[in-house]
Each structure stands twice: as C-alpha cells, then as structure tokens.
C-alpha cells in the first residue's frame, strides 16, 4: 500500500488513455479464456484496480476459478491458490513461525496469502474459523502471527469463489465477512455458441496456458494510482449516498448497505470510469456497479438461498431506477 502511494507520488500519473489501453488488452486476453462473460470480467478488473476484493458466487464448473487464474496470469503478479476444505487450518493460509536452530530464532514461513493475487477456491467449504483468518487479512492487508505483523504485497487482490449455500458441505459466509468484498459477481452458464467455441478451443489445449503477462506489476500500480485520481463531483457522491441510503429504508430489506459499501461503491465507480478512459465519474458508472457492489451486502426480508441473489440485484436495480440523478447542488 505504502509502496503504491510512493510510486504514484514519484512518477507522473498514467494517462487515462493508457489505462484504458492496458485494460482493454487484459480484458481481451481474459476473454479468450472465459468466453461471453465480458461484463463479469470487466467487473473483476474494476475491483482489482479499485483495490478491492472479489467474490464470485456460482454453481460449480462455470469457470469461477478459470476467471480468477486468467486475471492473475494476465498481469505479471505473484499468484497463489488456496483450495478451501473443511479441515483447512488458519495457519495453512497465513503461514507459521518455525524455530530455526541455526539462527536460534523463530522464522516466519509465509503462507499462500502472501501473493498479489490470492485465489480462494470454494471459500465457503472451510470452517468459519479458517474463513475469518483469510478475511481479516482482506481489510488489514497484513498478517499477524505470534504478535508480529507481516505486510502483504501490493497490489493485493483476493478472488474468492463460493458455491451457492444450498450446495452440500458449505458454511455460508457471515454478512460481516461478505461485507469485506468489494463486489460479488456470478458468471452464469455460457450460451450455446460460447460453449461450442469453448469445446473447440480445448481440443488443442488450455487457452489459459497460452496466456502471458500483459502488464507488469509496476504498470498495474500506476494504473491503480490513476484510478485513485479520478475526479468525483459532489452531485455524484450525493447520488451514491442516496442509493445506499435507500437500501436502508427499503421495505423488502432486513439489512441495508453499510457506510463501507458507500466507500467501495465510489471507489469501484472511479475504477469503472478510468476503464472507460474518463477522468471523472458519471452517475452511469455508479449505476453500473450498484448491483455487484451492493447486492451481496443486503439481507432480504424473508428470503434466502440462490433466489435471493437475483432478488437482491433486482431490488438494487429498482432503487437505482427510482433514485433521481442530481444535476445540481440543492439550493441552500
């Protein structure tokens, strides 16, 4: 984190056109792996540039992990992958301190979480105790073992996948931990054309293997710095706040979105604007990300399960539709 800031301060900001160019290259590349899911891929990249974390929720086999790995491979970043199982222990993630006889001291052996991009597969298969070990690091961006804090590398993106909660052997993620993810997306089944194309591609080998890093870590940091610099007008901030506040009074919702949600919505919108080569956020950016950013934080009154996901999206959408776009500061 500190590194990113230093870099941004030292060098001039990356041009938005360049940001857009790099983004397009990455998206195109990932598109060769995950066909027909441009929207989901864009959101994933948006979250990466907005320094958030991504939750991908869907049934098994639709390419959740593929997407995470493709994203990791497209940027020249360190990647680790954790397969969550019921017997996974917290130390399996964070790492352990081992006594080194030669130095006569405890030496910290970093766990798989120490990477730029961490793929947490089927996160809801692990016990709550293990889940929280990962998720604490999401917000803190550091790991504390035996009283010593170890900062995580930057950029740091956790892409967690989870199966819908009806699936066997799953522990549903508590809302406090869902709240730490900037956005949740679901991929859905590909259409017939995409699925056919996929079959033909896989005959000759995995397209994932052909993927090479397109953006260096340094370039990625500069892109993130450019996103931070995107301008947000007062009226757009107000628009975002209006939307979030509307979730708190909506009759169909038991729990609305948190202030953290407002922050993350704004950061995601900035990232989205930058991906579109725009130096300022427009209400449409907020609209576009309201569903993914707010949807998983809401608790519906009287509904749960897979149907609740799309129901939450529908509610967010209806709120967005009904919230007027301010064009001017209200007269005082």
């Amino acid at each position, binding site marked *: 984190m500190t590194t990113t800031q230093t870099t941004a301060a030292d060098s001039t900001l990356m041009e938005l056109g360049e940001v*857009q160019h790099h*983004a*397009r290259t990455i*998206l195109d590349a990932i598109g060769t792996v995950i066909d027909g899911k*441009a*929207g*989901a891929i*864009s*959101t994933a990249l948006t979250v990466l540039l907005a320094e958030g974390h991504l939750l991908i929720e869907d049934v098994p086999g639709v390419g959740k992990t593929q997407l995470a790995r493709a994203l990791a491979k497209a940027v020249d970043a360190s990647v680790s992958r954790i397969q969550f199982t019921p017997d996974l222990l917290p130390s399996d993630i964070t790492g352990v301190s081992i006594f080194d006889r030669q130095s006569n001291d405890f030496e910290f052996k970093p766990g798989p979480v120490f990477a730029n991009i961490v793929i947490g597969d089927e996160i809801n298969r692990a016990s709550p105790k293990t889940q929280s070990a990962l998720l604490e690091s999401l917000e803190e961006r550091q790991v504390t073992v035996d009283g010593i804090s170890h900062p995580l590398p930057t950029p740091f993106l956790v892409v967690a996948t989870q199966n819908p909660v009806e699936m066997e052997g799953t522990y549903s993620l508590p809302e406090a931990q869902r709240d730490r993810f900037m956005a949740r*997306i679901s991929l*859905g089944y590909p259409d017939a054309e995409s699925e056919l194309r996929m079959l033909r591609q896989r005959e000759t080998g995995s397209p994932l293997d052909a993927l090479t890093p397109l953006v260096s870590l340094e370039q990625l940091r500069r892109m993130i710095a450019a996103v931070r610099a995107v*301008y947000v*007008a007062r*009226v*757009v901030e107000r628009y975002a706040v209006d939307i979030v506040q509307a979730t708190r009074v909506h009759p169909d919702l038991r729990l609305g979105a948190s202030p953290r949600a407002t922050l993350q919505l704004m950061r995601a919108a900035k990232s*989205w604007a930058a*991906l*579109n*080569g*725009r*130096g*300022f*956020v*427009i*209400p*449409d950016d907020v*609209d*576009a990300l309201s*569903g*993914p950013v707010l949807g998983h934080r809401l608790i519906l009154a009287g509904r749960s399960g897979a149907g609740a996901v*799309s129901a939450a*999206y*529908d509610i967010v*959408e209806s709120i967005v*539709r*009904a*919230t*007027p*776009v*301010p*064009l*001017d*500061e*209200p*007269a005082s």
Partner: protein
Amino acid sequence: MVDLRSPLQSREAPRSGTSKVDSTDRFAPGNARWLLSTVLWLTLVFALASLHPLFQGAVWWFVPALVSAAVLAASAAARAAHWPSAVASLAGLVVGGLATTLVVSGGTAILGVIPTAETLERVRVLAAQAQDSIVSDQAPIAVSDAMLGVVVVAVAAAAVVLDVVARVCKMPALTGVLYAVVIVVPSLIPDVAPSWAWVVATVVGYLALLIVSSGRRPSRAGVVSGLAAVVVAGVVTSLLPTSLIAPITGVGSGTGISTGVNPVINLGDDLRRGDPITVLSYRSSAPEGDYLKLVDLVDFSGTRWSPASTQLDRRNSVDDLPAAPGISTSTRRDTVTTDVSVNLLRSPYLPLPVPATKITGISDAWKYVDDSGVTVRSTSEGSQGLDYRVTSRPVDPTREQIVSALAQPSDDLSAYLDVDGVPASITRLASSVTADSANPFDAAVALQNYFRNGDFSYSEDTPVREGYDGSGLDMVETFLQRKSGYCVHFASAMAVMARTLDIPSRIAVGFLPGTRVGSGEEWTVSSNDLHTWPELYFQGLGWVPFEPTVGMGTTSSYLQETGAEATPSAGATDPASPSASATPTASAPSAATPTSTASDPSSTAGASASSGAGGIGGTPLVVGGVAALVVVLALPWWLRMGRRRRRLGQGPPDAALSAWREVIDTARDLGISVDQAATPQQTATVLLASVGAQSSAAAALDTLTAALSRERFGGVPAGEEASRSARAILSALRSGSSGFERARASLVPRSLFVQAHPRTAEGA
C-alpha cells in the same frame, strides 16, 4: 473501446425511459390515487358551489355532488383493481350514466337506473323545460326537476371529463380550464355577484390537485399562470357588459343562462354603448312602419319585471294563432302585412307586429307562447336569418267604441294587476295625475301625457349617475322625483302606476319602427331601436300600447285625447293611425336618438340582437375581450418561451445544465416520456428514438450529453456548443412530433405546470 457491459445480466438491456415515466403513478401509488380523485371531486364541488347565487336551495348542489362522487369513485376503484386507465374512466362514465338516470328518469327507467326510450324522451322534455327556465327565469332560479336534471347531467359529464383529462391523459393541470369555465359563469350574468369565497376555494383545490398529481410542489410558473388565468378571467368577465359575453356564450340563441336574468335591469349599460348595427329589415303596408314586439314582461316582483314563466306547449302551432284577447268584434281594426327579414338578431323570440293573426315562412320549431298576447318563440332555433310574413290587425277604435267597450264586463286579469308594496307616493301621484279622468282609458292617456308633456327629460346617464337605474319600485319612485331616465323607466313607471289604478298592465320589449329606406315601404331596424313600452288592457280594445317615453315617436291619435274633451279630432275616423301603439313618426326620432331605446338584446329574455362578430355596439369591447382571451390563452406559451430564452442564453457554469433542462422540458411538452430519475445518458437514449439515430440531431445529442457530463460531473464548464446543440435537438424533436402535439406543447406546456427537477434548484 472496451466492452464494458454491465455485469448484471438484467441490466444489459438499456433501461428504457418509458418504464418509469409516469411521475403521477410512481409518486402516487395506492392511497395517493384515491387522493387525486378526491381532490378532483372536491375542487369540482367547490366550483359548483360557486354557482350558488344562481339557484335556490341546496338540492341542485347536493345531488350532483353525489353523482360526481359516484363517477370518480367508480373510476378510482377500477384503477385500484388494476384496470387500464381508459377502461376505468369508462366505468366512471357508465356509473355516471346510471346515477344520472336514477335522478332524472322519474320512474321510466328499468330498475330505476337503466334508461329506456321513454327515459330519453323524458330527458328531452326536461331539457326543454330547463331551457325555458334558464331563458325566462331570473336568478336565483327555483330548482325544478328539469333544472336539477340538467345540472346533474352537466356535472356528471364534467366528472367524466375531469377523470379522463387527469388520469387517462395525465394532464391534471388542464382540468383548470373546466374549473375556470364553471367559476366564471356567475360573472357572465348581470346582477349576480360572483361567490368569491367559493372561487378561492376552487383555486385552492386546483393547486392541491397540482400538488397531489405531481407528488411535489408545482412549479412557480405553474402556480403563477394558473392564478393569473383565474384572476384575469374573473376580472375580464366582470368588467365586460353582458351583451359581449352573450354571443360568446351563445345565450343569444337561447341556450345560455344569462338570458334568464331579467332583461330590463342592465338595459342602461347597453344603452350607453354606441355602434348601432342593423338587426333586421322589413317591408310594411303600414305608412309609419311597425313596432315589432319580442316579449312581454308580466311579472312584477317589486324589484324587477320579468317574463311570465311559461313552458312552451308543442301544440301551440303558429299556423293556428289564438285571437288577441279582449278585442270585441265591433272594434275597428286595420290589417297590416309585414315582410320581415331578420339580419343579425339572434333571439329565441320572433319580432312581430301586434297583434299578429297569421305568420308564414317559419318552421314548426316556433310556437306561440300563450293566449295572453301573441309572442312567438322557439327552443331550438334562433331568429337569425329568418324571412317571414306577418299579418297583423291593430285596433283603431273610434271614440264611441272606446267608451262602449269600457262598459263591458272585464275578464279576470289579476295577474296583470299584481303590484305589492307600492310606495304611497306613487299611488298618490297616479291618483292626482288622473284626477280629472272620466274613465280608465282616459286615465291611461292622462298618464301617458303626464310623462310626454310634463317635466320629464330623456337621459341614459342620469339614472346611473344618481343610482336609480332599473325598474324596481324604488327606482320608479326615484325616477318620478328626478324626472329623468330612459324607456325602461318611463315604461316601468307607467305600468306600475296603471296597476295602482286597477288597469292591467305589462311591459313590451321590442323595436321601434326604425328608419325608412328612401320613401318606400322598406324599413331597417338597428340595435338602437330596441325599446320598451307599456301595454294596458281595456276590455273591448285588448292590449293597447302606449308610448310614455318622452321624445320617442308620436302616439296614435286615439291615444292623444281623453274622453273628457271627447273631441275625436281625427281619432274616431282617422284611418291613418294604423299601427298598434303609435303612429310613429318614429323614423326621425329613432334615428336621431339612436341609443335611446336600445334595450340590450342579449340580456333581454327574448331579444338577443347580437351580431355574430360582436355584441351590439360593443365592437371595441369585443376586440378587447378577444384580446384578453388571447392573452390568457397565450400566457403559458409566453412564460414557456421566456424560460426557453433564459435557459438557452445561460452561460457558464450552468450552460449545459440549462440547455439540457430545456431539451427535457420540450420533450415532455411534446408528450415524450422522459424518466426524471434517469441519468443523462439514459435519457439521451430515449430521446435518440425521437430524433432519429442518423440525424444531425443525434450528433447534437451526443455533444450536449457529453458537455453536460463534463460540466456536471467532470468540473469542466461547457461553452456555446451546449445551447447550439440544444437548439438543433429542439427543432428535431418538434419536427418529429405531430401537429397536435406541437399545438398542445405550445398552449399547454406540461413542464410549466409540473416541475421536472424536484431536487435541484432552477438555474436562474
């Protein structure tokens, strides 16, 4: 460009602006819909209550209020049951029809509510009766079944129209027109004070309607123009004389309400206006022309004269006219043939020389009113453009005939003797004037001479200046003291005094003989020849017209001498005094004093001598009235144009915002559904469908949207391109709309009445 489609599948289709356009429904779900109907109804009954000076009692208000409540409740209930809006209005119409039938059918309907052919016939009869009542009664009208039925039908129809305008057309602001029409009615009627409290209540109701319908405060301009329209309408109508309103409201043809108010009262107003117009012409065999009578004023309530309230009997065909009452067969009579050609006179009464014995050339719609004296009227036709021939037989008695006739026993004419509460001063004066008279006829002549030969002067202005204009008893008393007035005063005074002497009397309203064309038998009658004169009844002679108005015509020879002298100089044998009332050397005086007798036609129960282009003598006022109307109608357009000019001339920092708002408002004015919560980009997509994707306006739309985004969200002020693009978009929007939409946008710009930007301040 990166394909950055939204990750939400359901959002991939661009959200259409039409999906949530209707602010009425969006902000007014559930109870608020009932609220809108309730406010519509309240405002309607307020407006209706403002008519209370016109009617007696409260039934006329209460029943229509119930019926209109049924109409609006039915349609609101249908909408609550998610029926389509138009179908719901239809439900309201059906319920209104049933409720109305219940009120008016009088037992002819099946189950009381389902109309039959008999019901329709009854409605027709009731309508005719109500029309009679409207034409002949004076405010406040006693509410008969017929009148109640008409009011119920009108109010039920108004409720349906309100429902359709406010709910189906979604233009609640437009209902103001209907409310305004209702509340200005009392202003149109002379001698009726508008009920300002109810007018204010109506206006308040209307404002509440605007607020309820939009779910928010109506725009300042909407309120201002609404109030201005009401105020201007009120002021204009109360300033205008009746005769101007008459042609506008159609009362001249007998369908309006203003003719129901006594004609004589506001006569003076009309006398004081110039610009005579020719109302009819005729060719007569009478050497001095004919007095043409329209209607008799019989009832004298003490405050005013008014026509007898009678209903037309359809059997009273003019082919079979009754004999003039009271003329004995021995009385000498002349026969006069008159060919009348009506020009600009619009009247439900036919101008006739009296007593007419035969009329040819008019349709069946014209009936004689009753046997008391031949006046002929129609409920369905006006007199304008008629050509007809009348044979009349005025009496021309010898002195001997007069004297012998007076000896005959008299018919019962108590209706013509009714005059309660006459001040003693009038009775005393009548007695003293006629002290030397040997018989009632002589007394009548003495009265006439008292006016014509005494100290009286003719003046149209004095009565007004000194506050005794009118024909009531107080006025008569004052007139007799001041000795100055015009025909109404003379006729009224003489008729009242005659009644105090037990001589049956009435007042005729009609025309002086007019102006002779050249030296032949052709005469033209102008609006200034309108006149009133008293008719007195003598057994054997029938109704004898007198001419007390000083300076008007000259009287018949047999009316010039009293029996005391009994020197029938020419009278007894003079055949040259044919015309009933006078041997008027009337051409000269009537031309010389043109405005003298111009009793106003439109305010007269029968006579509506109004031209199509304008009321009698009211051309400047008509022009002024039309101008005022145009101003009222053009006010929304003018306000809207002013706003457009301001917006398009707006510089930084709000140049793009102002231009954008102008585009949105114009689109709304043109009936394009614009979602007020949508982002500019989404709105632009909607507008693109209206301007065409390939047009130059589409490029302008892109430019403006981009400029707006930069200005509002990017902190980069927009330049002139904003208003330039806006102009291109505006013209594309307009040319893409139908003529009707453009006209509506100009006359009733929606954006003026319902604010589109609830949360933001108006830029300048």
